[in-house]
């Protein structure tokens, strides 16, 4: 298969960027999208050009490192899945494909297609954890968790932290990301003691990092590689309201 690529090139955070055209030829339909970019880079190195910078690591859809917008969609057209799980058989021979970074104000561009998502780490640092000191944990089966709750927690915990939700959202909101972590921990009895403090702090930092608010557009859910449900945002809102209410009551 042959493709015409339009790839975002940007030297660094401050330099202006632009779309540059490249052709790639003889690509097998079983090639992954990132392998197709590897082939492009291989050609660029051989012909004296500068390869395109893009981030990826596990290349099996779990680490959340890859972060490309393909033809305007975060992670490209094959949902649910990260862009590393996108295969060229999903395209037609001769297609023009536009490749851009995730575009969110809170994710500054590092170079070309690579962005800085440390804002997401800062949201977790604000409270996305259960404070359990190594050595002090009780016997595992002394904490019973109904299967239903454990399953809900697992579904929320499946978030891979890629940031596609924020990239797809017209408001640049990271609500789905924050909702997944808040929900995961509040579905479990172990998460109860820090429940209010966690949600209040995480939302505070989410706002401080410049992410927008949720206006129920559902683009986040549509592109989420981990199939995190947007209904968790409603849960996040309930958790937040509950925490504020209890705080006001002085509990």
């Amino acid at each position, binding site marked *: 298969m042959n493709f015409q690529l339009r790839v975002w090139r940007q030297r*660094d955070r401050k330099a202006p960027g632009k779309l540059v055209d490249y052709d790639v030829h003889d690509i*097998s339909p*079983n*090639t992954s999208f990132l*392998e197709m970019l*590897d082939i492009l*880079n*291989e050609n*660029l*190195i*051989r012909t*004296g050009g500068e*390869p395109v*910078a893009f981030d*990826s*690591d*596990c*290349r*099996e859809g*779990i*680490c*959340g*490192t890859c972060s490309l917008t393909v033809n305007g969609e975060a992670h490209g057209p094959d949902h649910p*899945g990260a862009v590393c*799980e996108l*295969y060229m*058989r999903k395209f037609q021979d001769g297609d023009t494909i536009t490749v851009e970074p995730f575009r969110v104000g809170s994710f500054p561009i*590092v170079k070309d297609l*690579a962005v*800085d998502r*440390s804002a*997401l*780490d800062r949201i*977790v*640092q*604000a409270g*996305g*954890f*259960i404070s*359990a*000191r*190594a*050595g*002090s*944990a*009780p*016997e*595992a*089966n002394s*904490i*019973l*968790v109904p*299967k239903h709750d*454990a399953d809900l927690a*697992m579904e929320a*915990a*499946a978030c891979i*932290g890629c940031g596609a939700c924020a990239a797809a959202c017209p408001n640049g909101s990271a609500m789905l990301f924050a909702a997944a972590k808040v929900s*995961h921990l509040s579905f479990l009895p*172990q998460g109860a003691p820090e429940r209010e403090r966690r949600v209040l702090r995480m939302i505070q930092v989410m706002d401080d990092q410049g992410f927008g608010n949720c206006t129920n557009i559902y683009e986040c859910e549509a592109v989420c590689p981990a199939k995190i449900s947007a209904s968790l945002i409603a849960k996040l809102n309930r958790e937040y309201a509950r925490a504020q209410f209890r705080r006001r009551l002085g509990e």
Partner: protein
Amino acid sequence: MIGTLDSKTPPGPLDQKWRNHQDHSRLVSPNNRRKLEIIVVGSGLAGGSAAATLGELGYRVKCFCFQDSPRRAHSIAAQGGINAAKNYQNDGDSVYRLFYDTIKGGDFRSREANVYRLAEIANNIIDQCVAQGVPFAREYSGYLANRSFGGAQVSRTFYARGQTGQQLLLGCYQALCRQVASGTVKMFPYTEMLDLVIVNGQAKGIVTRSLRSGKMERHAADAVVLASGGYGNVFYLSTNARGSNVTATYRAYKRGALFANPSFTQIHPTCIPVSGDYQSKLTLMSESLRNDGRVWVPKRKEDRLTPPNEIPEPDRDYYLERKYPSFGNLSPRDISSRAAKEVCDEGRGVGPGGRGVYLDFADAIKRLGVETIRERYGNLFQVYQKITGEDAYKVPMRIYPAVHYTMGGLWVDYNLMSNVPGLFVIGEANFSDHGANRLGASALMQGLADGYFVLPNTLPNYLAGQMGKRPPPDSPEFEQAEQSVRARIEKLLKVNGTRSADSFHRELGLLLWDKCGMSRNEQGLREALRKIPELRREFWRDVRVPGDEKDYNQSLERAGRVADFLEFAELMCTDALERDESAGAHFREEHQTPDGEALRNDETHAAVFAWEFEGENQSPKLHREQLHFETVHLTQRSYK
């Protein structure tokens, strides 16, 4: 400088060694912990849990990872589960049995005391992870669920769907985040360790390069912990992440740390087969699939290309069930991998290129219903469909072995300290617990055991004598290390040849897979040892690294790693040649039983081979640590 290799295994009965050892180790008081700085390289299960735990204890920790966030470390990709001898199933499990299965699975090439400690600690890990909110699978009663896994006859594996590694890593990432917020741990993402600094014979710091800005930094500390993972990517194609590399441990080796058993590399039996030259990695299909899937190939070569559902039962060869009736599809990884290679070598392999076997769920779907199978393995079936375009609910999966894990690593003593005082090595980066073959669901167990429980209890014994000995980062040793890193980067940029680093890496990988892969022989290893230096010379003559060093330069980053792999590969083949026996994953064709199983030589080879760097282009020096078995009897492994 090195002398005899002393494992420092504590005296006493096996089940009391760890307790006794802790009782007699030195401690550091809380007010002194704040004065001690510890470097942790890597943020996976081992590094992340170590950094979080040491931070919580009050040490000042600096944690480095090359990824953009500690949550991306490759532990995240582990699928199947984590072992512990809780005996929740009442099926006869015990700490001793987990210990025995692990040491037997490793083909008796690991240290008894280390493995026993691992089995003991495993139960604490489950407690710790549950407390952190890891959403393990549960029964309807609310109690924890278990499943069985390769190499064991009990059901002792805890799991979170097919994403156990992800959930455990996120648990430890969150613990790490808490310490970052409280100021005890400082994270350095996008940062690569490029050299180890040794001052007065003690590991006292590292030299790093920021992958984003190219900025070089010196970090001095009171101890250095390497948790940088395994070296499976030396084969180019493996189930490792693209970025996984040998650089941190190899740099430490070049500074005097011994590299132990580098030839012990695990080939995982259930991966998606290679589909073309462009391929950048191989994807694992969790071993847990073998609980319900049945492995087979056609009995006759002629059926190789017949659609699998049209091949009638009598014409199928369920070769694992046939050869190993008591373990069947759950035989250990090395044995299952070699069996797959054997049937493919016979010309009965399926799929493009004939390097594949079927993993069939038809019987399990009939027995349990498609919903149960979907619940157990849904995400894996989805991954399979994405990659191959095939629906494994309808046609059998095609699988083939691929490089997955490396049992070898830097040599450490019982305290997880290398022969270089102050240099500790944990997780996959060390060699200590898995012998010549690792059992499924044991890597997560070891990473977390080392980070949460072992290191925090052994490190103080060293640190107690190190108060006030941290050198300033402008001392000559740091200067020298930084200069050598800079010189090397300059050299890479200056070659200005015609080929990408990746193209050399791919060539190296093919050579190793052929000569030092699932089976090895003297002639092939000698050939590899001749070709690797040639390839290395070619690399330094013709590699092209575009761009400069003061930039986010992924070509430079990769070239540096490939250059290390090109040296390390030689060490691996040297070890494979020296180990003139078969053991676990190391299968020397010259040494096999009449029915083709690995044949050990316990008389002369029941030992750890640890290699010392002797200078560029010099043969490394071999040190041996004799393995003493006080409790178990060495037997021929049988899974029949």
